[in-house]
């Protein structure tokens, strides 16, 4: 029987001991004496969040297919266990073997959002690995980062040995083979990092140096080691059908956020919304073959026993075989009590028809993400959704029996005026009016229009990467304008309004576009006790402000200035295929309110054609 890292007394004292015992269905056990590389895969948040992440399940499966590798999982211990581990000096362990992370060859951390940065330090620290990559020696695991935040890894540069830029399915084999080779030859840690630096898509931050101008912007960013490449090429799987996908994902005992089979139908998005980082990073859009997806659905449901399946992608309505896939799922599984979870689809006759089949109309709500209230503002962000489309879709849904609508918007977008803000409640009210146009005897009581706004954060590799943000007071003021306008609407009793906190927005903004000098702020915040910053109950803004003050780093420098066209960004050394020229052209078009058609309507020459994949070659086959 497996011996647990935590004793019974601790396990019976803490919340949800199931987070730490492993043993789940489909978790992989191997004989550690028969493998060469031990890989600990980490999602730096609590188990229930980490277990819901598809990317880790893909990589876990991919690594464990190799006989010479044993990949295990590790998540952030919740605050109760965190304290106990510190007090009793218990090292962080992997779920499968329950062995200390420190004994592993690799610690891989997926970096999904900025507010998990202190949790990354927690994981490294509790593992007993030096926080700063330069302080590590041959006995420490190689700490490697991946995921969306690594498209600007600079704020975390000091803490990682390697960053993997791009789709995980491509060069890990090379990276692992090089590790084995180096170990066999008795090479040092430094030798390995040099070899890794030569692999496409691998960035070794300690081999680079940044020089700054007097105004704080970057003067130069250059490799300091001959093995390191000046430009890191994003890795991309060109054929999504012919790659890895986990047929038997790990099934948690406790309820996790995403407690279902997840079917990734496509990667990338054709739309080109100017605020959207994923829409640029994952270009070109690549579809997975529908017949393959059908097989995956059957196999995954069988192997997990999940009672729900959900489709995953950006803008799912753009998946060309959506109708066929959804119809198949309904026909195949509806009678077996399998719940089919549809992603937010464009509202049209088809989507209303399938939604009516898979969910209870009276309980479910429709979701629209117009992102901006006025047509002018939507043109600026290149969101091709018009008021007419929204009202028409809502109208059809209301006629079909729905009476709940959720609307999502952003505040603080570039060029936003008070009129644009006020257009949000007005649009919500128009939707409500459309509902009350239906005769009383044919409608289902009152309607409920719920509007949420978040504050816009400019992200690297988007046309808005040059944009400025605002301070906290300004964000709160903008939300107040919206709130006030809501109170003046005819149907105000049918309208609800929620807005996000502004504190976190400011921090996310700093780290999204930050540089290496922010490493010390993150470290200081962690030392002051910041942890689980994405959780409202544990987020402590005062400590973060203290960390900026203690380190002398100015938030305004990162958030409150519009960047010049020729400014060197911390992430410029990464080539995602989409060129900076294209992004700047889009920024200029945004300022003029000019829309750019999507990839299927017309190629805009973003540059990603050089990968020769997906939508770029679709019509040329």
């Amino acid at each position, binding site marked *: 029987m*497996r011996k647990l890292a935590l004793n*019974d007394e601790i*396990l019976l004292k803490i919340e949800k001991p*199931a987070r730490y015992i492993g*043993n789940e*269905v489909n978790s992989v056990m191997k004989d550690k004496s028969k493998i060469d590389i031990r890989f600990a895969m980490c999602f730096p948040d609590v188990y229930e969040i980490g277990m819901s992440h598809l990317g880790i399940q893909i990589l876990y499966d991919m690594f464990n297919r190799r006989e010479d590798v044993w990949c295990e999982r590790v998540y952030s211990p919740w605050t109760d266990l965190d304290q106990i581990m510190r007090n009793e000096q218990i090292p962080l362990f992997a779920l499968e073997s329950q062995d200390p992370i420190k004994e592993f060859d690799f610690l891989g951390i997926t970096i999904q959002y900025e507010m998990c940065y202190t949790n990354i330090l927690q994981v490294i620290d509790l593992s007993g690995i030096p926080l700063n990559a330069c302080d590590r020696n041959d006995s420490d695991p190689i700490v490697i980062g991946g995921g969306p935040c690594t498209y600007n890894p600079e704020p975390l540069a000091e803490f990682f040995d390697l960053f993997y830029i791009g789709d995980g399915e491509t060069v890990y084999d090379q990276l692992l083979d090089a590790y084995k080779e180096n170990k066999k030859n008795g090479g040092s840690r430094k030798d390995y990092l040099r070899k890794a630096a030569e692999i496409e898509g691998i960035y070794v931050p300690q081999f680079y140096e940044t020089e700054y101008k007097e105004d704080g912007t970057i003067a130069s960013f250059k490799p300091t080691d001959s093995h390191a490449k000046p430009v890191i090429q994003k890795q991309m799987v060109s054929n999504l059908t012919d790659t890895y996908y986990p047929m038997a994902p790990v099934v948690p*005992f406790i309820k996790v956020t995403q407690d279902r089979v997840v079917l990734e139908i496509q990667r990338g998005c054709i739309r080109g919304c100017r605020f959207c980082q994923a829409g640029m990073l994952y270009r070109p859009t690549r579809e997975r073959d529908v017949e393959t997806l059908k097989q995956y659905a059957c196999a995954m449901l069988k192997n997990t*026993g*999940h*009672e729900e399946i959900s489709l995953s992608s950006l803008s799912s309505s753009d998946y060309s075989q959506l109708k066929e896939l959804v119809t198949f799922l309904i026909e195949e599984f509806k009678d077996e009590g399998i719940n089919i979870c549809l992603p937010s689809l464009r509202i049209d006759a088809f989507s209303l028809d399938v939604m009516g089949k898979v969910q209870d109309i009276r309980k479910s709500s429709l979701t629209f993400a117009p992102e901006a209230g006025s047509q002018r503002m939507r043109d600026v962000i290149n969101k091709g959704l018009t008021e007419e489309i929204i009202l028409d879709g809502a109208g059809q849904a209301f006629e079909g029996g729905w009476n709940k609508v959720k609307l999502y918007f952003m505040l603080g977008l570039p060029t936003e005026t008070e009129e644009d803000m006020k257009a949000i409640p007005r649009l919500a009210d128009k939707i409500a009016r459309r509902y009350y146009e239906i005769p009383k005897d044919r409608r289902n009581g009152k309607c409920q229009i719920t509007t949420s706004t978040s504050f816009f954060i400019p992200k690297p590799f988007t046309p808005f990467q040059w944009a400025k943000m605002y301070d906290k007071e300004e964000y709160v003021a903008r939300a107040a304008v919206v709130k006030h306008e809501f109170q003046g609407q005819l149907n105000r009793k049918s309208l609800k309004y929620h807005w996000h906190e502004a504190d976190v927005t400011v921090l996310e903004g700093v780290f999204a576009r930050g540089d290496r000098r922010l490493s010390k702020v993150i470290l200081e915040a962690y030392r002051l006790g910041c942890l689980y910053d994405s959780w409202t109950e544990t987020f402590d803004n005062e400590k973060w402000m203290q960390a900026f003050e203690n380190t002398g780093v100015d938030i305004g420098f990162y958030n409150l200035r519009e960047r010049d066209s020729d400014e060197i960004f911390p992430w410029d050394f990464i080539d995602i295929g989409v060129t900076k020229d294209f992004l700047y052209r889009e920024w200029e078009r945004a300022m003029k309110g000019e829309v750019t058609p999507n990839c299927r309507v017309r190629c805009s020459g973003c540059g990603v054609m050089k990968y020769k994949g997906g939508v770029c070659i679709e019509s040329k086959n």
Partner: protein
Amino acid sequence: MKARIKFRKYGVMRFIGHLDVMRFFQKAMRRAGIPIAFTGGYSPHMIMSFAQPLGVGITSDGEYLDIELKEEIDPQEAVRRLNEVSVEGIEVVNFCRIPDDKKSSGMTIVAAASYKAILLESAGSADVPRAFPESWSGKADEFLRQESIVVLKKTKRSETQADIKPMIYQMKLEEDGIYLFLAAGSEQNLKPDLVIRAFLEFIGEDPDGVPFHYHRIDVYARNISEPKNSHKFIPLDSVSC
């Protein structure tokens, strides 16, 4: 048609709570392809009921759940398939048809449960038992000879004084543990730790300082061929299997 499943819960699975064990079985039924019946409506769920919840930390050789089947399945085949898709720490030991009438349903007929309380070297490990001190011998009988055994029963909402003596059907101190036979079910239910705490207090030990591990041996129904208050019970899987 209905079936009763008996399973063991041991090892690390003792840290999985009752609701999560239910979720585990729902998914296991699908993986094993057991032809279980569903309720109707927009969100159909499996027709499945558990006999007696088991607290986190407790192991068991006698856990039960009843399911409704939509078609016949060979019991041995069902046991084999369920164990094939199970994890270490949950083992199905029996699968049998039960009558369709309400009277036999697992939830309602539970009347008693037997436990073994094992004295531990430390609270840190349930796997390292310790022999009982010489001075405890004979104390279990003395404990039971009391007129009444009044303890403070804590629920989520309140604390009440209760005499648990009538709910202790048997208590024996043996070499490898204290064997308990206690009332269980929806009418009256006694948890083994409550008895052991009262016992420790009775012999002058600190209940918080003496660690025990609890193991459920089986769950019982009243033997209907015996008179009502006879305290004659039969294990749930002998009721009709």
